[in-house]
């Protein structure tokens, strides 16, 4: 039977251990997200924006560029309809992204935005974005997906170019994730592995 001070040390240590585990799994990820939102790190641009009528700054313009990437084996055609626009801060602007499902099967995609420079991320507001929802496209179909955004009038004067990147992920039928040899997402009946 261990001495009582020893047991107290044991119990306190175990609290510490469990506490740090809870911190790592349940507090660090949300803390990270909040930190990213506040500072714009990683270029995450936040959710749907509620429009306020703050007026348009006609004294300056900002160049907004668009780039598009397919992740992994994502086989869609995916590209911005224009590669850049010149906008006034405060003015709502609409652009479209073209997507086509070139395969013979119905698929669902998720677009994830990332913006640079980071200090502009909190000044870039999307009122309408195809990235808010998963995008289903049937086999062979194409779509023009809208993005409506406003560059905030308070954008630091030093920022003259903003680059918005979308990465398209295949989330068809996604409930479990896959490791390299588990290709359960692939529906065609072909023996690919010898």
């Amino acid at each position, binding site marked *: 039977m261990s001495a009582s001070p020893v047991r107290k040390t044991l119990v306190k240590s175990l609290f510490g251990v469990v506490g740090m585990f809870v911190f790592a799994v349940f507090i660090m990820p949300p803390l990270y997200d909040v930190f990213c939102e506040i500072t714009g790190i*990683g*270029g995450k641009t936040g959710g749907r924006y509620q429009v306020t009528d703050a007026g348009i700054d006609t004294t300056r313009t900002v160049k907004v*560029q668009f*780039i598009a*990437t*397919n*992740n*992994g*084996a*994502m*086989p869609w*055609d995916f590209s911005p309809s224009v*590669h*850049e626009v010149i906008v006034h801060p405060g003015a709502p602007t609409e652009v479209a992204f073209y997507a086509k499902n*070139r*395969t*013979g099967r119905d698929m669902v995609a998720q677009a*994830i935005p*990332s*913006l*640079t*420079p980071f200090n502009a991320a909190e000044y870039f507001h999307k009122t309408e974005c195809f990235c808010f929802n998963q995008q289903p496209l049937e*086999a*062979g179909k194409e779509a023009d997906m809208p993005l409506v955004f406003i560059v905030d009038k308070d954008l630091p004067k*030093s*920022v*003259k*170019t903003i*680059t918005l*990147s979308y*990465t398209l*992920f*295949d989330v*068809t039928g996604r409930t479990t994730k*896959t490791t*390299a*040899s*588990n*290709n*359960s*997402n*692939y529906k*065609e009946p*072909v*023996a*690919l*592995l*010898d």
Partner: protein
Amino acid sequence: MSRRANMLFALVLAPVLALISSGSALAEEAQRWAVNMPKGVTPVSNTIYDIHMITFWICVVIGVLVFGVMFYSMFAHRKSRGAVAANFHENTTAEIVWTVIPALILVVMAIPATTALLDVYDTAEAEMDVKITGYQWKWQYEYLGEDVAYMSELATPESEIYNTAPKSQYYLQEVSAPLVIPAKTKVRFLITAKDVIHSWWVPDLGVKKDAIPGFVTESWAYVEEPGIYRGECAELCGKGHAFMPIVVNVLEKEEYNAWLGEKKAEVAAIRELAKKTFTMEELMVKGKEAYDRSCASCHMGNGEGIPGVFPGLKEGSAAVGPVATHLDVVVNGVAGTAMQAFGGQLSEVDLAAIITYERNAWGNDTGDVVQPIDILKFKQGQ
């Protein structure tokens, strides 16, 4: 035996020979036994080199002083020399001095380090933008606003890697298509990745930045001098990590504009070519070349793959099954595996050639011929 002779040569004779040989050979030897970072060809690379050397020399001076005291003590205070141990074991003044002085040295170092970092981060007001995407295991370069995009993959043949052919001068540092940028132009790089984390590193440009899937990062370079600069992928990304080098070809502005014009014309020409019909022989030759370049790293030159990891392309595979399925696999990839969608990476001509080659090489002999127009039609969903 010759290996030991090689070692002896390397250890002793090479530096000696380097010293007595001609200037250009000296440069070659010097490149071989390099001991330091290159100064590079951009203002940033030079700034980095300078701060590296400042830090290095500060460390050397401190090391000489500190080890000097220690070596003196190791010599003078030996018991065998009759040294008798003193008894002191604290001195608060000394402790304060050797805490404050290092702290001051660090503050002094931090100032140029801060300005150097501001330089590294200064991507604003670039004259052109290049999007760089890291793939397993190659790079894609896209010139924003110019409608020019292409893959850049390792050009060193497998035979050199597996020692059945002698290694060329730029072994593992040559690519199918280098990144081409103009000199004396501020170029911004927008970097992302298609699958896992990669990192784009060109020492002479003073650029290294992680390529993270789903996110974009940026860097920049202003290259003073035209030339060819070689770099490497710098983040473990799977089996091809050491086999996806970077080559940057920096041209004078007029030459760059000419190159860009040619590249745009090439894009149009390939589209034209896609309407042409090729013979089986033409497709097999082109197919083998394209297969060896873009497919053999996983499926191997003999089409046997790696059991359990990358499928073989012989009996029972898509290469001898229905053509439509084979097309789907190559053009659209296989979700959840390492098989990428090559429809977005290779031209219709290359794709048709590769598929034809796979269907007829290694004894597969299906007799099937796939034309570029078939690829176009497949992509358009007919």
